[in-house]
């Protein structure tokens, strides 16, 4: 983001979020026939928080966003913005900004016309509309494109216009429905950072829907993982990634392989060998050891691995991926797992296919999850 006149923008940090509203979702259900899109979900989004609803398609994340925007009426449950119960409020009275998946920019209006529309509806004067449209274009780095037709814009530019239109009337809550999914990878990653910065500057409470786990990890203060209409885990990105509560979360976020383990009196074991853990695990049924490719390290021949949990196997295949190499390793038990080794001159030489390897897993990275309930 470019630097802007500080007087025209809310200050960083402390002031951010002052005008934002918290969202309280309590016991919301929504069914389409026999299909439960939302099954008694409750969630509080803090003032100024960036919360991501992450889930596979059909998980209910978009339905929840539609309920928040007022386009779908829940079958039961309440929604409150701040102290106002808005469960029954029509969409045009909710005052929330929304970025649609396909942007929904009005094709019969210019860029400036699109941005001015919410202001016109609010009876803002002509002069002020012009000022605010110019400022909004500036904010999303589209200076001077106000007179363009929407179909003359690139995908990335449309995305920015959609974002500008959603925030130009200074809503205190912003909803985003997979806003970056139509962009190519590089642009998407740029926009992730930009949206994040914009949120930090403006501080509105944001609910962001995505099915892209990396996007969720990049952008969010908190992630709510949703599946089959229910929240599976709600927490900060690091917590979700490092401490998944069950197999579903561990498999959905990041790449994971699983090995069945045993857990008795707080002592974990894998195939009869005790596992070194950083913390005493909570009791669980059918514990599984989570193996993430980047957490496993190939031990150099003769290296001392006594502080690590060790796995033995044979390299089945090497996949060169540029920044790293992915090794498919058949463990002695027969399970095939993936190991990622960063491409660096400092890294030990790669084993050859068919060669035996010893893999080390640090106790802090040794995570047990229960098999999905």
């Amino acid at each position, binding site marked *: 983001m470019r630097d802007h006149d500080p007087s025209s923008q809310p200050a960083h940090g402390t002031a951010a979020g002052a005008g934002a509203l918290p969202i309280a979702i309590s016991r919301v259900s929504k069914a389409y026939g026999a299909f439960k899109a939302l099954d008694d979900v409750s969630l509080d989004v803090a003032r100024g928080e960036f919360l991501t609803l992450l889930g596979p398609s059909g998980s209910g994340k978009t339905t929840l966003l539609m309920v928040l*925007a*007022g*386009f779908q009426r829940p079958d039961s449950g309440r929604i409150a913005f701040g102290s106002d119960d808005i469960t029954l409020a*029509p*969409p*045009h009275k*909710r*005052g*929330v*900004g*929304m970025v*649609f*998946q*396909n942007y*929904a*920019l*009005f*094709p*019969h209006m210019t860029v400036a016309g699109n941005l001015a*529309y*919410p202001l016109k*509806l*609010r009876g803002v004067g002509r002069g002020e509309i012009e000022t605010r449209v110019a400022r909004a274009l500036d904010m999303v780095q589209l200076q001077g494109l106000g007179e363009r037709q929407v*179909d003359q814009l690139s995908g990335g530019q449309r995305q920015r216009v959609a974002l500008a*239109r959603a925030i130009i*009337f200074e809503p205190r809550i912003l909803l985003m429905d997979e806003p970056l999914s139509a962009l190519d990878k590089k642009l998407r990653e740029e926009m992730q950072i930009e949206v994040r910065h914009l949120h930090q500057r403006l501080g509105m409470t944001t609910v962001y829907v995505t099915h892209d786990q990396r996007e969720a990890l990049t952008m969010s203060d908190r992630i709510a993982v949703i599946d089959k209409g229910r929240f599976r885990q709600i927490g900060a990105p690091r917590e979700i990634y490092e401490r998944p509560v069950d197999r579903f979360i561990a498999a959905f976020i990041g790449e994971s392989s699983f090995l069945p383990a045993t857990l008795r009196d707080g002592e974990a074991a894998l195939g009869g060998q005790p596992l070194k853990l950083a913390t005493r695990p909570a009791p669980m049924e059918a514990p599984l050891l989570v193996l993430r490719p980047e957490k496993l390290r190939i031990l150099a021949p003769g290296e001392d691995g006594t502080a690590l949990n060790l796995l033995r196997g044979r390299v089945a295949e090497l996949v060169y991926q540029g920044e790293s190499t992915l090794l498919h390793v058949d463990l002695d038990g027969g399970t095939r797992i993936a190991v990622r080794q960063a491409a660096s001159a400092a890294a030990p030489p790669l084993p050859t296919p068919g060669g035996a390897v010893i893999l080390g897993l640090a106790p802090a990275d040794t995570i047990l999850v229960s098999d999905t309930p």
Partner: protein
Amino acid sequence: MTAATSPAPNEAALRAAGRRESLTLGALAAPGLALIGIVALAPIAWLFWLSVRKGDAYTLEHYVRLLHPNYMLSLQTTFELSVLVTVICVLLGYPLAYLIAQARERTASILLLFVLFPVWTSLLVRCYAWLVLLQRRGLINTWLTDIGLIDAPLRLVHNFTGTTIGMVHIMLPFMVLPLYATMRAIPRDYLRAAANLGATPSQAFRDVYVPLSMPGLAAGIIIVFILCLGFYVTPALLGGGRVMMWSMQIERHVTYHADWGAASALGVVLLAMALAIFWAVGRVIGFDRILGGR
């Protein structure tokens, strides 16, 4: 890269293959183009030629004759009727198309069937049906008299009113179908976005839905208006000889006077009017939108 400047050895072969492909595609398109030429363009050219011929000489006589008040009155009638029918079709067709576009898939197909059903029925049958309904001792007058709303039968047919009613009935599908197609393609998200930005349902309809349905409306207006301009059967049957349409003048010249020159001039004027309407609507709405560009 040794031979960057000299052509690669297979360049000629590739160019020949490209030429062959163009020729093949051209040959495939030829029957269609020939048909359009023979069926559409050639008769129009012939029509023009006839309209400026008298005996063996070129003349504008046929056009000059059209300035006679008789023709002017006919032109006015044709124009008034076409405008009136088009306006009524818009007023009836827009809400109807909107209703069908908003309905569930199943309901929409049933409603569309009702719209299309008259199109599949013979034009003559429908005109005579209106005659039965509208005439002096027809169904409508009988009912209205029976329930005591009127004392004397209304003059509903064999005049401008009857012609208008009959033509609206016949033209309505041509208004509804393009409108429906356009409306159905308006993404819901546009209306949701408008609502989200603070528009009440009626504001969203006015500011977003109506402008986006314009191409369909324009197409409907053009089709209905142009069909009206050249309409013959309904005015002839329901107008009772009192509604003298441009098309009837053509028929008169051909049938009674065998005057092909005058008939051709009338035809050329009709064609010019149709093109003028198309141009006028196109100027307002944009040609690419009417022709289905976007």
